[in-house]
């Protein structure tokens, strides 16, 4: 039993065979292998089955609103830079409801890891299309099949020059663990989009389908070449897995904040500076 496991039995709200179980294990293994102290690991999640993942680990968590994971995660990191912050939710949460925050979190580049369970369907609301649902997929709402182009989070992240962009497949626990470890240790915003089979509401994009339609990038691939990365992200056919794009030269949001220029302390250790206050009041006298 690891430091992220509970001593007691827990009731997990996922369907038997759900890809989320594999992701939960990969996340826990990654944290264990990195020997991160659970006292400083904070998970931030939104709403949906993926967003329940932090409930099943012995960690701090902030389970907030649907789509609003990244603003909360950004602020948590900015308020205490000593915390390891992992924002984890589903494709609907991150790319649908939270699409605007997804773009702007990439622009800000806080040192957080963003794990997205991408099952190409809205499962908790019983099977409607998500932003990443493939064209032609028939649902109770999209009865003629989805007509829109699926959202391509990897291409969008590279277009926005995200500092770390990776894709994983929940079925491959070892590789997924390794990718998550790289993302957590990366300094800056790190996207890990994880293909996750939904055994109840997605009978098209199954374990077998993902196996057939993905491949791992090999050692000769250079993730620092943005144009090549964008080609990889948009190429037709099978999806590449692994670290697709990496830019280590970006400034990190919370490192640029003026509030830390003369003071390293996290916000909770700060108190009102009477001198500053008095000077400000006096400046209004003249």
């Amino acid at each position, binding site marked *: 039993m690891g430091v992220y496991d509970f001593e007691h039995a827990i009731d997990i*709200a996922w369907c038997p065979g759900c890809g989320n179980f594999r992701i939960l294990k990969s996340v826990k293994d990654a944290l264990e292998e990195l020997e991160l102290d*659970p*006292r*400083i690991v*904070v998970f*931030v999640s939104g*709403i949906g089955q993926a967003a*329940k993942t932090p*409930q099943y680990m*012995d*960690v*701090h*968590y*902030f*389970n*907030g*609103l649907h789509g*609003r994971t990244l*603003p*909360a*995660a*950004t*602020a*948590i*990191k*900015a*308020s*205490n830079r*000593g*915390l390891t912050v992992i924002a984890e939710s589903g494709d609907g949460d991150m790319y649908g409801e939270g699409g*605007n*925050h997804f*773009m*702007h979190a990439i622009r800000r580049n806080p040192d957080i890891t963003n794990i997205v369970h991408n099952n190409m369907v809205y499962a908790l609301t019983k099977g409607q299309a998500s932003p990443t649902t493939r064209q032609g997929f028939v649902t109770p709402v999209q009865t003629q099949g989805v007509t829109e182009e699926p959202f391509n989070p990897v291409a969008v992240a590279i277009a926005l020059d995200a500092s770390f962009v990776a894709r994983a497949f929940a079925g491959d626990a070892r590789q997924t663990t390794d990718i998550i470890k790289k993302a957590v240790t990366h300094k800056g915003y790190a996207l890990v989009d994880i293909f996750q089979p939904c055994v109840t509401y997605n009978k098209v994009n199954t374990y077998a389908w993902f196996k057939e339609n993905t491949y791992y990038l090999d050692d000769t691939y250079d993730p620092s070449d943005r144009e090549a990365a964008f080609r990889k992200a948009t190429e037709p056919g099978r999806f590449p897995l692994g670290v697709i794009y990496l830019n280590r030269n970006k400034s990190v949001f919370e490192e640029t*904040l*003026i*509030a*830390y*220029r*003369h*003071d390293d302390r*996290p*916000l*909770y*250790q*700060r*108190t*009102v*500076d*009477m001198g*500053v*206050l*008095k*000077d*400000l*009041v006096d400046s*209004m*006298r*003249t």
Partner: protein
Amino acid sequence: MSIVFSGQAGQGLQTLEAILTRMFKRSGCNVFSYSEYMSRIRGGNNSTQVRISSRRVFCYTRRIDIFVPLHQDAMERFHDRITPETVIMGERSFIDKRYLDGHHPVLEVPINDLAREAGGPVYANTIVLGILAGLFYVDKGLMDDEIRMILSGLGEERLQKNLAAAATGYERSKGLLKPGQASVSIERTDEVKHEILTDGINVVGLGGLAGGCTFVSAYPMSPSTGVLVFFTKKAEGSGVVVEQAEDEISAINMAIGSWYAGGRGLVTTSGGGYALMVEALSLAGCIESPLVIHLGQRPGPATGLPTRTEQADLNFALYSGHGEFPRVILAPGTHEQGFSLMRHAFYLADKYQVPVFVLTDQYFLERRYNIPDMNLDTVYDQHFMIKTDRDYRRYALTESGVSPRGIPGFGEGRVRVDSDEHTEDGFITESFSVRTDMVNKRLRKLDGLRKEAIAPELFGPGDYRNLVVCWGSSLHAVQEGLDMLGRADDTAILHFSQVYPLHPSASDFLEKAHRKIIVESNATSQFARLIRSETGIVFDDKILKFSGLPLMPEDICESLSDMLEKKETTHGRV
């Protein structure tokens, strides 16, 4: 003495306002100023009122003693405020023909020509400044000091041209007034010279700092943006994290995230921006996060009048958010309250783990006047959070409803907060009994909040017959209006700076009055309805203004005069 300048956006009215108010205050006069302006960057018609007095002055008035038109269309919106006593001063071509009939006091000054000689039309405002300094016997050295202070960023050459333009105006003021045309001698007081001169934006910002604010996230929206700018300017010295978010939804979720991690978060917004924040207000209610919301009201609905004022978002602040959870709404009426209530908001939010609103408005934020001091003695510097131990439970059930609040990274425990209904440990639950316990626990906090509520403040005789009730920024207009009316013997004012939850004394004050009159800057008397729903007490009369301009003492005086006389006639006592 009320001076009004009227011109186009971009003509330097703000600079004039800044220099004049500082200069007159330093010369020993009490000052007040407020600008009304259109939502545009250039053109249109904006005006600024500067009041100078030997007594303290706190509010915008209809009365104009000196009117200075700075543009040919400058008088169009002011005909109803210019009386036969109003002195009109300035360029002849800017003065409407109807006032050149010999029956209006007019001081012609060739401002266009003087400005041209000084270097161009941009110097017109500086020439006016010089004239006013001269008319009111301000020391020239003091005037030059203030010009240097405000215009130092222009560079030496333009600064010198401005000083020369002001000197020209100063010279011109001599002999401008014929004897008896207007009295310009204002008694000076030494104490005033060292008082604080500021607007509402700064007092809100300072109050936030005094309350220990360490995190501000906001999306710009008039009239609340000034508070964001205040913190941005002070961020380096005060160590406050300030972020302009991509939208208001992000801003409020950031502020809540910051509280979770040990920050003390503030959002500053106006009605439309707050509308986007509402789901997260409910999040703060459910996860029991402290949160301070500065809501600077402006007229709605939708975009409404972006640069004008109103008190019409009380209902919105009170009823927004799905589900049931406690909240507090504070509404400062004075600069001093703006400071102390912002500080108090952080205290209440932290202690009770609830959202606290500080409800201001455009008028409150942008009016400027001098006050003797700000009370820094009771600076709030107490954190209610605790260091956790291994079996910490974020939502431990307690008698007060308040559970000790831990943060991640401080102690051995795990801090789990969840927007789903949750157990004492913070895990998602669908247990009906836990649900019932948690709803009760959250609502129990209202008992403590009621006990700590700020009592309404009574101004006037304790044995009043008529009671004029107001809240937030309306106080000063009601005070000056009642002074004008001269009913200090039987009419008192009751001002609420906390509008929810109400202090228990509210009913006692109201029940004692024979006649209850509500004054609000909205169309539906929202506060009167709130009082009725909380106490069952109904008002007899209403004075409501919702044109976008602030309530003025004249509005109060005239309406009260009508109401009180009417009533007495009905009773046959006059």
